[in-house]
């Protein structure tokens, strides 16, 4: 069992009421998509937005096929609305 750290941005803060979440998975390395599937089960209110969400570790955007280990933090990047 391993704990994965997830950071919430934008509307995810409102949906979850927190800035970050912990998700426990059965492996020491998982695909991002597996983590998102688990997240969606635990937080069904995130479902719609997760469909249009990008994922980042540090300042790198990553494919959902990429893998992540528990020492990294996954940032959830919902649709952006900066600018004017």
């Amino acid at each position, binding site marked *: 069992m391993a704990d994965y750290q997830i950071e919430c*941005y*934008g*509307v995810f*803060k*409102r949906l979850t009421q927190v800035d970050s979440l912990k998700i426990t998975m059965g492996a020491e390395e998982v695909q991002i*998509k597996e983590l*998102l*599937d688990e997240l*969606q089960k635990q937080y069904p209110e995130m479902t719609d937005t*997760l*469909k*249009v*969400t*990008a*994922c*980042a570790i*540090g*300042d*790198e*955007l*990553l*494919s*959902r*096929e990429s893998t992540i280990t528990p020492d990294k933090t996954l*940032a959830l*990047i*919902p*649709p*952006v*609305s*900066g*600018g*004017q």
Partner: protein
Amino acid sequence: MSDYLFDTDLDLHALLAETEDESCGALVIFGGAVRVNNEGRTVDSIDYSAHNALAEKTLREVEQETRDKFQVAQCRLVHRIGKLALGELSVLVVVRAGHRPEAFEAARWAIDTVKKRVPIWKEEFYQSGDSEYLEGTPLESKISDRP
């Protein structure tokens, strides 16, 4: 906070000084400001938040892409973070180029691209007391493989 994100008033003067360039006959500036009306609601303030590391990196990339794509000598982009009152500037684009056609095109492309690619979010606060995160643009890269 950085050269790209600021939690205080955006400093147009500093950007103009930074981009001074005797080869440039044209200066185009775009500023985005908090508007009192949005989609029929009366706005009181907007709270801008960002994924700082990725936003700074992306703003730097968009600056470089703007210079390359339009062959303009200077492009600077800065964005405000935090709660902004009506009329306050949330974003500034400064472009300097030899002539005005490319300066206008570059500034327009830069702000359009900032809105599509930079991980910044706005929560609009209304006079009625409630607030809402505005609908945005999904980051295009890396989400084609959605579940």
